[in-house]
């Protein structure tokens, strides 16, 4: 199995466990602003950027829709096409709110993805080291860290 690419080491094991169980084709873990913390399955940096930006946009849109309807924000979205499913979910982590974007094929299912997503959230909560004083938990200077992140994700 190809390895996931991660910005911080603690993300690797929980994510790879999730990928192994679900057989997902593509996965992104990112901040609500679309900054990617880990990716699996993408070949090109531009595809990661586009998927992350679009995923973050969708999450922001449905969050706003929920607010307008005076609902708590949606936890997860699932889009189904004949060959693939796209699962987008928000969750809390010790590093703040995060988004997961998962693409799966016919050899997996929304049931499996949902099931192991809950485990992923738990695993990430356990695995996260305490945020150090020096390193920002989620970088404020987006552009600078972006290039560094992209380099890591595609080394």
């Amino acid at each position: 199995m190809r390895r996931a690419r991660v910005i911080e080491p603690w993300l690797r094991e929980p994510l790879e466990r999730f990928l192994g169980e679900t057989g997902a084709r593509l996965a992104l873990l990112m901040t609500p602003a679309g900054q990617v913390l880990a990716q699996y399955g993408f070949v090109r940096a531009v595809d990661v950027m586009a998927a992350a930006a679009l995923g973050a946009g969708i999450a922001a849109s449905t969050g706003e829709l929920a607010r307008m309807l005076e609902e708590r924000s949606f936890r997860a979205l699932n889009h189904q096409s004949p060959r693939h499913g796209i699962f987008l979910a928000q969750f809390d982590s010790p590093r703040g709110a995060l988004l997961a974007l998962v693409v799966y094929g016919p050899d997996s299912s929304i049931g499996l993805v949902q099931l192991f997503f809950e485990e992923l959230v738990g695993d990430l909560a356990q695995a996260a080291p305490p945020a150090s004083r020096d390193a920002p938990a989620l970088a404020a200077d987006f552009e600078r860290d972006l290039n560094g992140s992209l380099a890591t994700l595609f080394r």
Partner: protein
Amino acid sequence: MTAHLVRILDRVTRVRGVRGAMLVAAEDGLVIAESLMEGVRGNALAALAAALAGRLGRAAAATGVGSATFVHLEAARGALLLVPAGQGVLLVTITDAGVNLGLARLEMLRAVAEVA
């Protein structure tokens, strides 16, 4: 409609030793209807059973013996039984070790006939 399906499942769960039965959407691994005892994780069971059924179905097809009609997974403390109900639906039953397997199978096949 779900109440009707649950009534069908109750026929299976009435068999002594059966801890639960569910109808699962095979492609999605999601619960359609369930009749489960305490402690059985329905969502997990649905997702994993559907995945298993999918794999076994492909294996059966590859061996040329035709599609699976009844799956029996025997484990240390019980069993998992699967019967495809047609139209992408799966009947999943979870049992204790001492269950009358023949009876459980019979009721499952009858239930599937009613669902179709």
